[in-house]
C-alpha cells in the first residue's frame, strides 16, 4: 500500500483519472452526446464534479488518520486544484452560454439570486486557495496562517451544497445526499477537534502532542 502511495507515477496516474470527467464531457460535446439541452447538461455535470472533488479533497485528512496512511497527503493539493478546475469550468459555462459574457447580467444574478450568490461565493473562496497552493506560499505565509486560510474550503463545501439545494425545483434528494457527505466530512473535524483524549495517570508519558504540520488540516 505504502509503496503505491509513494510511487512517483501514482500522482501522474491520479492526475489523468481526475481529467477523465472533463475528457468525457468534451468527447460528448463533439459527438453530440450531451442531450437536448447541452448547456444545462454541462452545467450540471461540472457542478456535480466540483462538489465531488471538494468532498474527495476533504476526505484526504480523515482517511489519512483513520487508515494510518500519512502518505495520502501527497495528493491533497492536486485534488483541491481539481475541485477548483471543475468549479472554474462550471462558472465559465454559465458565463459563456447562459450569460453570453454579459458581466452586468452576471453581477445582477449574483446580487439578486441567492442560489447564485452562495454558489459564486463558494467559487470565489477557492481562488485564493488555488493561488496559494504552492510550497512557496506556505513558506511565505507561515504554516499556521496558511492553514487558517485554507479552512475556507469548509465554507466552499457548505456553500456548494446550499447552492445546489436552492437551485432545484422540488426534488431535493440529490442535494441532500451531498449535504450528508459534507456533514460527515466536516462533522469528523469538529468531533476530532473537540474530542479530548482519555486522561492518563499523571505519571504517564505526556499525551502525544497534536501534530501541527501545516499539511494536517
Amino acid at each position, binding site marked *: 500500500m505504502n509503496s503505491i502511495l509513494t510511487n512517483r507515477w501514482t500522482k501522474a496516474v491520479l492526475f489523468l483519472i481526475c481529467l477523465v470527467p472533463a475528457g468525457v464531457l468534451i468527447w460528448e460535446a463533439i459527438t453530440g452526446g450531451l442531450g437536448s439541452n447541452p448547456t444545462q447538461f454541462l452545467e450540471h455535470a461540472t457542478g456535480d464534479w466540483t462538489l465531488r472533488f471538494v468532498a474527495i479533497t476533504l476526505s484526504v485528512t480523515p482517511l489519512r488518520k483513520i487508515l494510518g496512511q500519512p502518505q495520502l497527503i501527497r495528493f491533497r493539493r492536486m485534488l483541491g486544484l481539481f475541485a477548483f478546475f471543475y468549479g472554474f469550468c462550471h462558472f465559465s459555462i454559465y458565463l459563456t452560454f447562459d450569460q453570453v459574457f454579459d458581466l452586468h447580467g452576471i453581477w445582477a*444574478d449574483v446580487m439578486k439570486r441567492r442560489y447564485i450568490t452562495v454558489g459564486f461565493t463558494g467559487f470565489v473562496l477557492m481562488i485564493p486557495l488555488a493561488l496559494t497552493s504552492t510550497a512557496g506560499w506556505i513558506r511565505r505565509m507561515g504554516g499556521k496562517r496558511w492553514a487558517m486560510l485554507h479552512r475556507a474550503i469548509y465554507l466552499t463545501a457548505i456553500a456548494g451544497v446550499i447552492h445546489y439545494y436552492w437551485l432545484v425545483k422540488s*426534488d431535493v434528494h440529490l442535494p441532500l445526499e451531498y449535504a450528508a457527505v459534507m456533514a460527515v466530512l466536516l462533522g469528523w473535524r469538529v468531533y476530532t477537534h473537540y474530542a479530548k483524549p482519555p486522561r492518563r495517570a499523571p505519571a504517564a508519558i505526556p499525551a502525544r502532542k497534536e501534530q501541527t504540520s501545516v499539511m494536517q488540516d
Partner: protein
Amino acid sequence: MLVKRSPDLKYSDVTPRDIYLNRRKFLYGMGLAGGLAMAGKSLVDLVSPPVRAYASTKLQGVSGSPYNTTEKITAEQVVTTYNNYYEFGTEKDQPSKNAQKFVTSPWSVSVEGEVAKPRKFTMDEILKLAPLEERIYRHRCVEAWSIVVPWIGYSFSTIAKLVEPNSNARYVAFESYFDRKQMPLWGLAGIGLPYVEGLRIDEAMHPLTLLCMGMYGETLPNQDGAPVRMVIPWKYGFKSIKSLVKIKFVKDQPPTTWNITNAHEYGFYSNVNPKVDHPRWSQAREVRLPGYFKITPTQMFNGYGDLVASLYNGMDLKKNY
C-alpha cells in the same frame, strides 16, 4: 385546407398494427369464447405491458392551422428525450425511459362540474370529435428553454361546448392521471400528485388553447403526455398538463400543482413574460434547444400577444404572475 378523415375512426386505427394483430392472434389462440369471458381490462393488461399503446401511431387526415409559427421545428428526438414529467422522474431524460410501459389504453376523460351535459369521453370519441389540426407552436418552459413543436389536436373549446358549461363555470380545473404502481418514482417528485392545473374560462375557450392528442404526425409519446394533454402556448410549459383524465368546470379559481408547491415562484396565470423574472432566474432570454447559447429573446405571451393580450386588459401582470 381540405380535411380528409375517415368518418369512422376505430380503436383499431389507433392501436399499433402489430399489437392489434397480436391481440387477434391471441384471441384465436384462446378460443373466442375464452377471450370474451375475460374481463376487458385484464385482456388489455395481458397484451399491453410491453407496448406504448397510443404512441407512435400515425394520425391521418391532419390539416394545417392559421396559428402555425414559421419558425424551425425542433427535432423530434430533442423533444421526446427532454421532458418534465415528474411522475416518471425529475431528471429530463428519465420520462422517456421510465414511461415506456405506461398503459394509456383504454383511456377516458371525464368532463364534469358546472355543465349541462357532463360526460366521459373515450379516446376514440376524443379523436373523432373534430377534424385534427397540426398546430406548430413555440413552447417556452419556465426554466428558460424553448422548443417549436408540431402538436396535433383541436381547440379545447370544441369539447367544452359539447358539455355546455353554465354561467357558474368561471374556471376550468384539469387533472392528470396518477398511479403509484406505474409511476414508482412519484415519491421523489417533491410535488403533490395527481398533478392539477387550471385556466380561467376565457383562457380555456381561446382558440389557441389546444386539446392535444399527437405530435410530429403521430399520437403522443408517453413521456410527452399520452394519450391526451393540454397545450397553452402563451403560458409556461407546466400549465400544459399531461395525460388528462379529468376536466372540471368550476366557480372558483382551482388549485394548481406548482402554485401549491411554491406560490412565490409559480402563479396561477404563469403567462410567458420577459419582464417578470422567476425569483431564481431571469426570464428575459431563453435557449432554443438543442442550442448552447441562451440568446433568444423571450417574447411577451411567448409571441402570442396579438391573440391573447386582450384577455388580460387592466390586469397587473407583475402581481398576477
